[in-house]
């Protein structure tokens, strides 16, 4: 149990303008779940990419199972049994589930000619899928699967490789509660088999639940390694952030104001939203709860004009509005922070400044100085960690990218802010900052719709909570009456039978 499987000593790595790792050490035992913690941009992913051979360290030593590996490559990492569940999905979307799981290690009827044994391939796949509790079938095309299933596949890939060390880089951001439970079962089983596991997450609750020890980084510096049993949440946060965060959910209760948005009988073409009606008032944070796949994202995409509306009416400030395109919604003062920042939120090749200003190019001829000043102001006020506003958004860490998306919308005259999973991949410090921003917004008599799969966050911040199940609204709970249990019941009730209970 106490066998040291991985040792990374004094790793240094710099990118132009940033020293991402300033001498970080990490030691992981076989059969241990080891958390890697730190704020956004602390260097966690970079550390793991060094381990995976994706980046080459500037200095420092890597010892795996007693073997010194000065230069790591992805191929070598694979040979050494290092499995990687990346923060970003990395699948061959056009291929089947089975092929994704076994690519590179397909079973053959004739090894030399490489003639594939499909029967064995599918059988092996079904076995793994069962172990993962995944709903997908071996022959499904990955591109057609929901994100949660894709995320499970990434995990399955690592497991099926019989890896001795598996790195989970924020594996639960796209998973619902039930899936998280399943994942933890899988992790525990792996641990039993003596697999070493590195677990990265910003959800401290999970860390306490599944991890044995934790190594904390801050600003690329090694802060320390602790045994989970011996620390409190506050100690951990202090190590990460360097200060205390007094209140995780700094909720400011306010009297709800005028009716801002009213939605009647909204449905979409794909059948993922069925006859949804609700209201949002100024000065309130309206939460949407539901299982992953319950259609919350689809509802807000309709409000924003990102998808086409089949039926239903939307009123803003008491007048019906017609929203066909996001630009129509923006004109009505609606904005949407999408759940997928890389694909939908940012132009990764463009600079931070350009991303921030994209929603607000009012004049045909641009004043570049002014745009720059605007961007710099947001970088300061949101504490976006970037070497310059001219850096491409793609090189920022996940959490900082999220802040850029936020800045983009704060830079408009929006009145209704829709946040879809706003704290996905965001560190505790930044989370508190985002909650602070929400409070500012409602103080300005604006309104917020928040979708989140983290129930504590929902209960902590929302004034009212709508619950969705299979495309229908199944409940509308007030802040005071809402509990985890009530929400879960409403979220798992069949859409049909609960129709009467809505509203």
């Amino acid at each position: 149990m106490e066998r040291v499987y991985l040792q990374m000593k004094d790793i240094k790595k710099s990118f132009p303008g940033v020293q991402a790792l300033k001498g970080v050490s990490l030691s992981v035992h076989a059969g241990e779940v080891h958390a890697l913690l730190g704020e956004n941009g602390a260097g966690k992913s970079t550390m793991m990419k060094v381990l995976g051979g994706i980046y080459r360290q500037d200095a420092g030593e890597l010892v795996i199972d007693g073997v010194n590996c000065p230069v790591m490559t992805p191929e070598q990492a694979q040979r050494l049994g290092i499995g990687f569940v990346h923060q970003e999905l990395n699948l061959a979307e056009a291929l089947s589930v089975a092929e994704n799981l076994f690519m590179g290690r397909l079973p053959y009827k004739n090894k030399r000619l490489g003639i594939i044994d499909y029967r064995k391939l599918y059988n092996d796949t079904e076995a793994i899928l069962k172990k993962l509790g995944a709903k997908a079938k071996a022959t499904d095309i990955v591109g057609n699967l929901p994100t949660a299933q894709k995320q499970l596949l990434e995990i399955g890939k690592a497991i099926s490789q019989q890896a001795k060390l598996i790195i989970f880089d924020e594996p639960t951001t796209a998973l619902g509660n039930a899936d998280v439970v399943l994942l933890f079962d899988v992790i525990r089983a792996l641990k039993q088999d003596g697999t070493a596991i590195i677990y990265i997450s910003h959800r401290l609750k999970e860390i306490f639940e599944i991890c044995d020890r934790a190594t904390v980084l801050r600003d690329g510096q090694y802060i320390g390694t602790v045994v989970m049993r011996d620390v409190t949440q506050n100690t951990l946060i202090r190590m990460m952030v360097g200060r205390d965060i007094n209140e995780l959910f700094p909720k400011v209760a306010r009297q709800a104001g005028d009716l801002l948005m009213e939605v009647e009988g909204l449905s979409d073409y794909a059948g993922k939203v069925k006859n949804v009606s609700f209201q949002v008032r100024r000065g309130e944070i309206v939460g949407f709860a539901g299982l992953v796949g319950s259609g919350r994202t689809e509802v807000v995409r309709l409000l924003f004009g990102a998808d086409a509306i089949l039926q239903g009416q939307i009123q803003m400030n008491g007048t019906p509005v017609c929203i066909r395109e996001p630009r129509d919604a923006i004109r009505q003062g609606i904005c949407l922070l999408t759940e997928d920042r890389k694909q939908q939120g940012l132009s990764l090749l463009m600079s931070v400044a350009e991303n921030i200003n994209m929603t607000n190019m009012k004049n045909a001829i641009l004043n570049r100085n002014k745009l720059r000043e605007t961007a710099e102001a947001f970088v300061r006020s949101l504490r976006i960690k970037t070497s310059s506003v001219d850096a491409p958004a793609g090189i920022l860490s996940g959490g900082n990218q999220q802040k850029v998306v936020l800045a983009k919308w704060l830079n408009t005259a929006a009145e209704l802010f829709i946040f879809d999973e706003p704290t996905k991949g965001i560190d505790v410090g930044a989370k508190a900052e985002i909650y602070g921003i929400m409070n500012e917004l409602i103080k300005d008599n604006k309104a917020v719709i928040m979708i989140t799969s983290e129930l504590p966050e929902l209960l902590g911040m929302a004034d009212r909570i709508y619950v969705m199940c299979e495309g229908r609204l199944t409940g509308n709970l007030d802040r005071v009456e809402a509990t985890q249990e009530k929400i879960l019941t409403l979220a798992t009730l069949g859409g049909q039978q609960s129709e009467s209970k809505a509203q």
Partner: protein
Amino acid sequence: MKVRLNEAVLPAKWEWRDIALQYSVYIVLAGLIVAFSFMSPMFLGKANIGNFFRQIPTVGIVTVGVTMLLITGKVDLSAGSIAAFAGTAAVFLAVKGFSAPVVILASLIIGALWGLINGFFITRFDLDSFILTLGTDYMIRGILLFFTNGIYIKGVPDWFYSLSNTRLGVDFLFSNTLVFAVVVVVLAYMMKNTRFGRYCYAVGSNPEAARLSGIHVRRHLVKVYVLEGSLAALAGLLLMSNLNVGAPGEAAGVGLFALAAAIIGGAAFSGGIGTMSGAVVGILTLEVFRNGLAVLGLNSFIQQAVTGAIIIVAVVVDYYRRRR
């Protein structure tokens, strides 16, 4: 250029419209055949069918090669020049008196070597395949024309002519058609059932994921270019046999046309998508159309214009298929 997979969730009920769209290319093809045979009795005549089958192998073989490449996420604009180069070289050697096996092997190797060069540059220098093969297209053709001085090579031995032109029992089946059919069947099997084929899809769909799965992506890409180059050479060989000369200016533009056919047949620039049967239907559709127009005796410029139009129609139909 990204394909949307999200919407393509399978419908619960298969309505006839869905089926129609799923097989849209086949339907377009069938429709064309029916329409043309009404418009001209010559269209389904023995003479025309014979011609059709004898003309399809050249562009057909290039098309399946290019489709394999597209599935792997790459293109080759130099395919036509490779065909001309390898074919002309074969004629040169045949005229010099080398034996059939030597000539054929040499020609295929020449095609493979050009493919190797394309593949090497693209992988070694991480180049866009479009622009690199545009460059090699100019280069290969220029070298070929320079060495031959642009002049046809004559005096082809009889065995060389028979490569394409051996009659197989019936009047409308010749050896080059058979070669084409064999190539299609072998390639279709390979793409579906072998490691090599599946690696093509994996590399085309997500090269990074493929690399992380332990596939040697660069090496695989080079292999695919080598195979595609040999296929182009085979096409060139059959073409020159058909023409009975070594024609260095031949097969210009075949690469682009093959690309159009592959895409009409369902392959995508984004890689990872496409089938051999689709490719064959794609090229058949384009060629039936062009053949029909020629049979109808349309003004040759109008033929060019409507060929453009059919490419557009085919991709628009494909749009409805994707949207289903």
